């Protein structure tokens, strides 16, 4: 699946991955790839601007540590991020079920 298909959904996916606990960017990308069973094919470099944008929106918070002599930035969900994730999940469920209903076609007339 190409990045175009993820348009507008990257925030939901990233927040959802981080709902499991704090992770650094590489781990987030790996989790996205594993959970989608390799379906999401997006340039890895695009995930970091999204993480930064979510942090600036107050949905994530990050902290730096030093691992193996390198600086590492770890992100975690804020309470606002948790609320936003719940809202986005609800919106996605509504959208998904609506699309499914459309694709399924009209119901059989039982009368």
């Amino acid at each position, binding site marked *: 699946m190409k*990045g175009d298909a993820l348009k507008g959904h990257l925030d939901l996916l990233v927040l959802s991955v981080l709902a499991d606990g704090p992770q650094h960017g*590489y781990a987030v990308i790996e989790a996205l790839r594993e959970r989608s069973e390799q379906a999401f094919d*997006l*340039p*890895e*470099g695009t995930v970091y*601007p999204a993480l*930064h944008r979510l942090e600036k929106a107050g949905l994530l918070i990050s902290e730096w540590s030093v*691992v193996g002599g390198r600086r590492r930035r770890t992100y975690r969900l804020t309470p606002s991020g948790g609320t936003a994730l719940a809202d986005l999940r609800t919106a996605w469920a509504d959208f998904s079920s609506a699309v499914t209903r459309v694709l399924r076609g009209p119901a059989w007339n039982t009368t």
Partner: protein
Amino acid sequence: MEHDLIEAYLVELRHGLPGRADLDDVPAEVEDHLRLKASRLEAGGLDQLEAQHRALEVFGNPAVVARAFIASPDVPGAVPTRFTKFSGLVAIAAGLAWINLIGLIEFGLVTMLVSASTVRPFAIGAVALTVIALVGSVQRAGGFRNLVIRLVFTGAAIFALALAVPVWMGDAVLVSLLSAVSLLTILALRGSRTGQFGRGRAAMVFQGAWVPTIALSTLIVGWQLAVGPRRPRLDDRLRRSAVHHRRSSGHGWLEHVRRDVRCPGARHSSVRHRTDPAGADPLPRTDPRFRRDVDQRRRVMLVTTGSVARPQNRRCPIAE
């Protein structure tokens, strides 16, 4: 290591992020990712150079990644808000107040009918409105996140108001007042990078030079704050730079990184046009490799900004 592709990549990325507040943080974060990825690929059996090459390949073109970072402003407050728009209207009111104040003083000096007590409320009002407008300017420029700027701003604002209270509007007081406002202005516009706001910078700094210009400049900034651009523009320097163009639209960007590592002195002279990896003729726009690069950049914009922005630097002024 003899050829460190990641190091060269980070240099390219850094070039694409001029003047950002997080200029040190972004490359550090990207480096951690790339080295982690490369080490895992090495563990999978690749040699060091090939592992780095693969890590960079899946991470993306450094110019494209930099542009994605630029599309998301580095300063939390550097976007229009309801308050900054309101402060724009206040700035317009401040400009009108300054015009009235200047007229009142000139009229009073000629006719001797206006006393200091009459002028005082106008002066206090004009300064107060200007300070509110400047608070909006600082917030629009994202300056409030810096503690030093917050403290200096607060001190300068108190100083400006304190000067206005015992108003008799002598030259020394007026110059001091305008200096304080100008200081606030410089702080407010520090770090701003939008096109319209850039023009406001010149106008606001100009106000410190001559008394009547404060009204005009405050009106200009008020207009820009109230109805200015909704989103910060891409960095003009990045947009116009032929060097960045060459780096961002060239299909063989990774090849350029490799070439730069092998031959650092040839960084700016090795490739003058958008060329194929072999360094031969410029790629025609009908070439599928050129098309792939454009598609990749469009995909990045879609994923990171949620909007279909026309890929920048699509035409090459040098090659065409």
